[in-house]
């Protein structure tokens, strides 16, 4: 405890006792003495409150989360009493290192998929940072990073579910969070791309996972479903095109746009993006074909490319022979 170095603690005997216990790592003892110090005459001493802040920080556990607040309040009181700013930097550092724990919690909760708790922690972090450290702090970049991460987690959670209202709820939350990021930074590639992908996947899932038994009695519902699927593909486009402008060589963006236009039955644009995609990926496909010579799906794709988007009769015939041989063996 550097701030106590050289200080004459004789005039603060109770704080000195607390400090002794602290140095001996006897936390219950340290707590007892420091809590006594703040109700004695020593309560007007900045170092008493600094030490209290440090002790309560040290004592914080999952079961005693309120100790963090007590630590913060103690350090704030220490700052109030430090009228000549002798300990300003030290106190600010201690406050920062205590308040950042809310941010750490937000990240830990993200990891544990406790997403509501994570967001709550993040908001508390910002609130306390502004209140106790720097009221005008610009959180824009931190917000962009955090909310992108949070939204991605919601997307990840939704992938664990095949369908249903819970999945929709998770995706709605992800969309809202990505929208918030885009409000902060309209050129954020990740938020734009992921928003586009969510809409694309929802449109595709509607078309591909519809329960056919529902429509025999109610074909109007099939019509509504197909209309909704088309709407979702259309909603995806602006986001994917923004992502495309930001990174014209992104394969995932090309795939998204290809998929959307395919779903929209827009052959002109579909073929344009399919060709672009194929030109970017053909070498990769050919390399994979050597690694996985029995992959029929891959061969079909290669044949499609050499017969349509990158026409090449020689290559087509070469891979057709491989394909036919595999097919006849099956």
């Amino acid at each position, binding site marked *: 405890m550097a701030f106590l170095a050289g200080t004459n603690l004789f005039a603060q005997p109770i704080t000195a006792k607390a400090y002794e216990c602290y140095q001996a790592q006897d936390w219950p003892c340290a707590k007892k003495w420091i809590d006594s110090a703040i109700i004695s005459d020593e309560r007007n001493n900045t170092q008493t409150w600094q030490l209290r802040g440090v002790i309560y920080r040290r004592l914080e556990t999952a079961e005693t989360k309120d100790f963090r607040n007590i630590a913060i309040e103690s350090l704030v009181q220490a700052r109030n009493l430090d009228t000549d700013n002798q300990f300003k930097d030290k106190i600010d550092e201690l406050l920062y*290192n205590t308040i950042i724990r809310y941010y750490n919690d937000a990240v830990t909760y*993200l990891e544990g998929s406790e997403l509501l708790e994570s967001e709550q922690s993040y908001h508390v972090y910002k609130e306390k940072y502004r209140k106790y450290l720097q009221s005008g702090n610009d959180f824009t970049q931190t917000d962009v990073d955090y909310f992108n991460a949070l939204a991605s987690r919601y997307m990840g959670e939704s992938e664990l579910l095949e369908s249903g209202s819970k999945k929709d709820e998770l995706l709605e939350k992800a969309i809202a969070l990505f929208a918030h990021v885009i409000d902060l930074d309209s050129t954020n590639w990740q938020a734009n791309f992921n928003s586009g992908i969510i809409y694309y996947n929802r449109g595709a899932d509607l078309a591909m996972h519809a329960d056919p038994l529902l429509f025999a009695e109610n074909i109007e519902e099939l019509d509504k479903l197909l209309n909704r699927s088309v709407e979702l593909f259309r909603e995806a486009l602006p986001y994917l095109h923004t992502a495309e402008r930001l990174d014209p060589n992104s394969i995932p963006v090309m795939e998204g746009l290809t998929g959307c236009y395919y779903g929209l039955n827009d052959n002109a644009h579909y073929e344009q993006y399919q060709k672009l995609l194929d030109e970017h990926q053909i070498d990769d496909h050919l390399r994979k074909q050597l690694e996985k010579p029995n992959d029929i799906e891959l061969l079909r794709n290669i044949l499609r490319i050499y017969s349509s988007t990158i026409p090449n009769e020689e290559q087509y015939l070469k891979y057709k022979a491989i394909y036919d041989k595999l097919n006849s063996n099956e």
Partner: protein
Amino acid sequence: MGKKVHITVLIAFVLCSFSTDHSSLTQIKDTRSSVKALYLYTFATLIDWPQDYRKGDFVIGVFGAQEGVLMELQKKYQGKSIGSQGIQIKKFTSTSEINNPHILYVTEDRSSQIASLSTKLKASSTLLVSEKEGDLDKGSVINFILDGSKQSYEIDKGNAKKHKLIIADKLSALAMRVTE
């Protein structure tokens, strides 16, 4: 302040690892085949076949290059039922193989054979489904067409009658076009 910078950088690193681009989610999905297969199944549920077609398997045949639709039919509908009839999906590679399926879906690349197929099947109650402009005039009963961006269909009731097929009103109601 070194410790402060270290913490911030560490957290940024951790957040970046959460912020994936989910590129695995962008694999192109064959939505068109799913929709056409869904329509073919729906046609099967909303059309009445004559009595002698209501026993044995309900056969949906695919003639042409649409591997996607064939695979979708096999994956989702093979083994399901239309009434008391189990659905069987068949791929036909030549017209000689076609033997009065309940539904015959003829893909665009085989459109030139619609007229001859219609003649071959004139005595049967096969629902001939095509997907090229003008194919109703060549004898198909239902033709896939686009309604803007959405897959839709048109019906020729006269052709349906020739094959003794009764089309439910609600199927006609949602068609983009119905010709008598």
